[in-house]
């Protein structure tokens, strides 16, 4: 999706790479030849999708999981903790026709070579990753948290000044702390950065007498903060 939001930059990238399959913008069918790079969005939620991602993996030298759903299952994965069948019958009157299992990121089924974090992914990171692959160098991996980027922007802390639960201290940076810079707490759409301390953050919130209910909802949103995705 964000590929079309690259606008004219997309044409620049396509000077170096040929777009073989993108059903949303082109009639071209999935080719029968190997691909250099596959960029895949979305979570895997049923058997057909699992078969498809395995097929794409076999065809491709380099697989990029793009966006929160492909990285951790995303918001869809909130339903993973509900009992089997309950979600289906909430939405559909005849749930037996509707097939959907648990939502997982791509790495539940296949090896992933690079991740683009966030909901949505960042335009610049997408271009950088594609151009790195064109130049055959490993794509850049963000190593800072959103909280550090927020400090560098000189923002007031939304937790310390307004008591809002912010996932910035444990979330993968690279977004320039866009939400807190707009006065909104970080919701952790980019997933948890390895080496951070979600338990410590939870403790800080508990000590600040935040209701356990609010904490629970915050910790289980775009990803489960206690499940650090492979990278």
């Amino acid at each position, binding site marked *: 999706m964000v590929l079309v939001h690259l606008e004219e930059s997309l044409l620049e990238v396509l000077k170096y790479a040929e777009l073989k399959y993108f059903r949303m913008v082109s009639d071209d069918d999935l080719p029968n030849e190997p691909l250099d790079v596959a960029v895949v969005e979305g979570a895997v939620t049923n058997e057909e999708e699992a078969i498809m991602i395995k097929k794409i993996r076999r065809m491709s030298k380099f697989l990029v999981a793009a966006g929160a759903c492909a990285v951790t299952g995303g918001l869809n994965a909130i339903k993973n903790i509900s009992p089997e069948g309950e979600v289906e019958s909430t*939405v559909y009157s005849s749930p037996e026709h509707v097939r959907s299992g648990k939502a997982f990121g791509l790495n539940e089924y296949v090896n992933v070579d690079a991740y683009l974090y966030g909901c949505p992914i960042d335009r610049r990171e997408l271009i950088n990753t594609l151009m790195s692959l064109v130049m055959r160098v490993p794509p850049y991996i963000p190593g800072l948290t959103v909280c550090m980027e927020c400090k560098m922007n000189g923002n007031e802390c939304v937790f310390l000044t307004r008591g809002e639960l912010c996932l910035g201290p444990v979330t993968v940076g690279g977004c320039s702390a866009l939400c807190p810079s707009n006065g909104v707490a970080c919701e952790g759409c980019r997933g948890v950065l390895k080496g951070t301390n979600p338990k410590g953050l939870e403790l800080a919130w508990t000590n600040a007498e935040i209701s356990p209910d609010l904490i629970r909802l915050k910790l289980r949103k775009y990803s489960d903060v206690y499940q650090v995705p492979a990278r």
Partner: protein
Amino acid sequence: MVDRTVVYDYISRVEGQGSLVVTISNGKVKDAKLEIFEAPRFFEAFLRGRKALELPELTSRICGICPIAHVITAAKAVENALEISLDERTIALRKALALSGIMQSHALHIYFLAAPDFLGYPSAIAASKDLLDVVKRGFRLKMIANMVSEYIGGRAVHPVTLTVGGFTKSPPVEKLDETIKSLDSSLKDAFETITLVSGFKYPEFESDHINIALSNKGEYAITEGVAKTSSGEYFDSRDYRKHVSEEQVPYSNTKRSIFNGGGPFEVGPVARFNLNYDLLCDAAKEAAEKSGIRPPVKNPFKSTIVRAIEIIQAIEEMRSILKEGVNVPPPRKPKLRQGMGTALTEAPRGLLYHSYVLDREGNVSKADIVTPTAHNSWRIERDIYELVPLVTHLDDNSLRSLLGMLVRAYDPCISCSVHAFTVRLIRE
């Protein structure tokens, strides 16, 4: 006797995954099924138990093309439940944000989803080898629309500043002039788009059916107002479920919407144009005249022209809203309470409904979301029944591509309706 079955597996140039299966017998359509096979994400289920104030942010993720429509509609439904009223500037700025989303979605549809059919290319990217100026114009329109979304919403896809009760931050005043200038410059591209789409050769086909669009006094309604129908009825979002019911169909993950217990209906740019033509600005009316269309538009393929006209309407209205100033008061902390809230707005693809039941702590106990594509899905199938008998002389490939164009004309957003499309044609 089955003449043939035409199958369009995984329809291209629509958002999401779906297919179309049409069975033709004795020159008539025996069966037409729009199969949405994209896996449902169960938003209405996992929203239960979440906090009311999270709803704009969470429902934004229903769609990457029209997140703005979901954010605004969810915020309005929660404000409706909590009895929060907004000041005039906030309402105007929300409309400008909604219009930027419509402009972006329409530019994407015209140049990247629809135009390849009329220009004879598999994609706009393939077309850019011969028609670079045209494709770049499409990108420019999209870019300026996204720039306005980002200016008001903090980010174009999944805006962050729009919240229950208003905006967390006013758009930066120092960038206002630049934003208005960009809009000024895009008007030329928008009129060239009118020339482009007026030159397309549209299949000759008309279907007559009920249109439903938002209506409000004195404006081309997008974010405020009540539903108006071409049959002369009006209803408020609170009464939506008295007029629109839903039925599950076994072959699809999208539910079918039914008007007044009777039949299908159409929402979207054509319905808005047909019902609210008089309220378009002068430039948009001039564009309509130039392209030779006037209401009621009954040829679904010509929705492409209507989208181009709406781009002009959006640019004009965004300019005038921004020129009146962008400073909005900070939102007051909402007081949570029990209640039910509903909202109807115009998403790029048409009427969008959100409804929530909240408990005393402001937790969501029930969510009901009906997207424009869900509203239109039965209408699309009925169009196929009416169109195919007129074109049975076509071979399978030509028929498949014509039906693909018809489906595309409604710009279905399958991710929204659930998520996926394919056309299978079965001739009997």
